[in-house]
């Protein structure tokens, strides 16, 4: 077997050194009647054979890059520079462990320090951690943190929050015995969230752009939350938007969480992604997750270490701020490299192209008969009301080789009033031809 270095000669010599007759003698602690002899699975396969098997599965899927593609709602198709994917595959990054031995992991640590700084600057916050699993779990952790900070147990969730995110928060809160007040789906961005904030509220969770694409004015919500001693948790699922849109930090958010997939990371059917988590300096010791900090070594040279680990499970066990251990290191690396390549100038240009493409697309689509646009403002994503069931229309378009967007019913099933709504995203990968193909195909199926 190509991954196993021992020849049988090696094995015999090693058993002799150990002083046992056979490998079975090393497994005697397993009760004999429970010892397994053979699994009902195929035999070892050559690399060619593995490529064939997985290639066959891959061929049953329709890749984003193979068709005009407008699917978003929390995960976005962006162009990742070849440099990014090359660098993250370097052995020294890819096959290294969590940097618990800082003397020989300064590479990973410095990258995490750069990541934390980039995320803090982007979100307009004081500090960021070294990544979470993804945006949805980061949001759930933000709610738990708000409970710790405020010593209250009630979170209010905007109806513009991604329904999957809502479900993740609800599931965890339910188990932990906390309260979640989730507002109804808000595709038109007309909810009155201010009215729901009261003295029991630990936090208000608001996503902008919302899952329906609306840009939300966070400042009044922050003001109202602060008035009653609650926190504003801002959620950003399309981080590219921050190239053009005012940062949540500047609008008064206390915790900003987000999905970083858009920068540096492929779609990969939903994971692995990279959760962003940033907050105010004063809350830093209530944060979940790893933090990398600057220090000096025995010779006084600058260096980096994981720090404030007294918040963490491997030290504090059941008193930890979170049970998180593994983070999204390699995805954070991809984020940081891509963001470094972009720089502010590149990010703003990228955001501008996304916005331009979405504006053009929204204008073209909303001219179709029976189609109306629900958004006054948006970044690279918007919601349309179609003259029929959106899921059926999307299937019809897929059959024509166009992936048109996410029917709201996919996220909010069983709500007839939402059945005709379609969330459409457009990024820098879309060409004029892509847009024309969608418009033409939609005209045909309507």
């Amino acid at each position, binding site marked *: 077997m190509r991954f196993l*270095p021992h020849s049988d000669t090696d094995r015999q010599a090693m058993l002799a050194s150990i002083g046992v007759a056979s490998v079975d003698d090393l497994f005697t602690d397993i009760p004999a009647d429970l010892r397994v002899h053979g699994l009902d699975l195929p035999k070892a396969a050559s690399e060619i054979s593995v490529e064939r098997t997985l290639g066959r599965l891959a061929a049953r899927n329709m890749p984003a890059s193979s068709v005009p593609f407008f699917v978003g709602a929390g995960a976005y198709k962006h162009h990742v520079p070849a440099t990014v994917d090359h660098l993250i595959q370097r052995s*020294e990054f*890819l096959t290294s462990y969590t940097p618990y031995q800082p003397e020989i992991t300064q*590479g990973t640590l410095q990258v995490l320090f750069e990541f934390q700084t980039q995320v803090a600057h982007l979100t307009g916050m004081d500090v960021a951690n070294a990544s979470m699993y993804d945006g949805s*779990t980061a949001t759930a952790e933000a709610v738990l943190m708000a409970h710790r900070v405020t010593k209250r147990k009630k979170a209010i969730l905007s109806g513009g929050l991604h329904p999957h995110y809502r479900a993740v928060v609800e599931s965890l809160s339910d188990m932990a015995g906390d309260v979640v007040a989730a507002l109804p789906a808000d595709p038109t961005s007309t909810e009155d969230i201010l009215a729901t904030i009261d003295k029991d509220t630990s936090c208000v969770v608001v996503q902008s752009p919302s899952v329906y694409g609306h840009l939300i004015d966070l400042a009044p919500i922050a003001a109202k939350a602060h008035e009653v001693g609650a926190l504003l948790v801002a959620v950003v699922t399309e981080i590219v938007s921050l190239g053009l849109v005012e940062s949540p930090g500047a609008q008064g958010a206390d915790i900003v969480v987000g999905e970083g997939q858009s920068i540096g990371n492929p779609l990969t059917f939903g994971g692995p992604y990279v959760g962003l988590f940033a907050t105010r300096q004063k809350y830093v010791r209530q944060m979940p997750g790893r933090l990398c900090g600057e220090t000096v070594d025995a010779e006084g040279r600058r260096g980096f270490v994981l720090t404030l680990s007294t918040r963490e*499970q491997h030290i504090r066990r059941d008193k930890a701020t979170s049970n998180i*251990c593994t983070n999204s290191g390699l995805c954070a690396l991809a984020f940081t490299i891509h963001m470094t*390549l972009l720089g502010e100038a*590149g990010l703003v240009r990228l955001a501008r192209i996304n916005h331009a493409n979405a504006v053009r697309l929204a204008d073209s689509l909303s001219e179709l008969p029976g189609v109306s646009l629900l958004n006054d403002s948006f*970044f690279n994503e918007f919601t349309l009301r179609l003259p029929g069931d959106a899921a059926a229309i999307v299937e019809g378009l897929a059959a024509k080789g166009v992936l048109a967007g996410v029917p709201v019913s996919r996220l909010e099933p069983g709500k007839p009033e939402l059945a005709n709504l379609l969330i459409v995203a457009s990024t820098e990968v879309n060409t004029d031809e892509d847009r024309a193909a969608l418009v033409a195909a939609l005209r045909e199926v309507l």
Partner: protein
Amino acid sequence: IEEALLFEIGRNDVTGVDFDDPAPFTERLGKHARKSSIDLPGLSEPEAMRHYVRLSQKNYSIDSGLYPLGSCTMKHNPRINEKMARLPGLGDIHPLQPLSTVQGAVELMAELGRWLLEMTGMTSVALSPKAGAHGELCGMMAIKAAVRAKGENRNIVLVPESAHGTNPATAAAIGFKVVTVPARPDGTVDPEAVKALLSPEVAAIMLTNPNTCGLFERDVVEIAAAVHAAGAFFYCDGANFNAIVGKAKVGELGVDAMHINLHKTFSTPHGGGGPGAGPVVFSERLSAFAPLPFIRVEADGPVLVENESELQAGETPFGRMVAFHGQMGMFVRALSYMLSHGADGLQQASEDAVLNANYVRAGLRDLMSQPSGDRTCMHEVLFDDTFLDGTGVTTLDFAKAMIDEGYHPMTMYFPLVVHGAMLIEPTESESKASLDLFVATLRDLVMKAKSGDVERFHQAPLYAPRRRLDETRAARSPKLKWEKPEPWSEAAE
């Protein structure tokens, strides 16, 4: 060679990515347009390449040397897995594109589940958890849901003192009270101690098997029976699954839920701290509670069930762990690894992993001390610091001295139940020659420590990109992001 921070060499007006300018258009941002600068320096492509290549050169990695971190299973990461994960049909598909256009992905998830269930002898699997600790959370949430479904109100979880910190942290995160189970002298759990703690308040026990001392819990069946008799559930921490694949099925040991670290046993790369993937396998008693989304295997193929509206009788998921469907990128890599090994290779890998750990034990047993005497271990071997008594060298010193010899240190000071613990897991990826050199190096270090050559240990590491770092200073006034130096401090430099 030193490498500056991005923020010291980058410039806000430099970019390493080109775009064509869009045709003129009218913004639709409303009043939300950004007013402030972001302050994100950029680098041109050649500068960025060099910056990150040079940073990478400051890292240790499996590909450059043995990485004997006990409990972490740092094994070879095959590059065929990386290649497969990057097939457009697997890497470039959106979690919310029509299911009709991702049937290969659904089939792949079903296939991964089939392998995991056959290897564990369990009934169902939740693929979506994003890492081991997230899998623990998933498993314990299912247990809580099951307790509730029975109308009970059990709020205690038993955890041995040798457990990973994630175990108690997980239980506490969803409101359980953690009660510690003491260990026997050899680090294993005494069934009598468990029985003494069982009560109608107890919801579950969380046990790691093989345990963190590198030993198989030989009384696991008796413990499971007692737990079940008390109406509680048996959660198994699967971090050490690498020792027993194809050797024992946890389902037959009485386990009700176990997470599997795909980034340990199934070689998806650790990536400097993630991403991982922590699918959870369930016994029949818990299967109904597995979270959304899950794969339902129907007569004409697998179906991805995403929402409550699609549930069938007997399916009572406790909710959702995460947006979308889990770590597909890791599923591909893990399945590629499993297919490569096959049933025979997986069993051989576990055998070689255990063989290697025992070979290291045999090579060091006369010089280093084992907390419960010299006995057969599983895939990792545990030493304590007794052999350093009187030398003035601590476990930490010893570990840092390994760095100067070109090795990553073993896991130190864990499990907590052993004084000055050193937990060595070579994994099956190491050749005999590699282990021989490793053993010889450690033997040499032990002799040096015992011969009074203490300074070498206190000073270590000397031959690394950095000497020992001041962790206290880092924690006292945390500096967690780059701040522009004050003008006067620039002048002073």
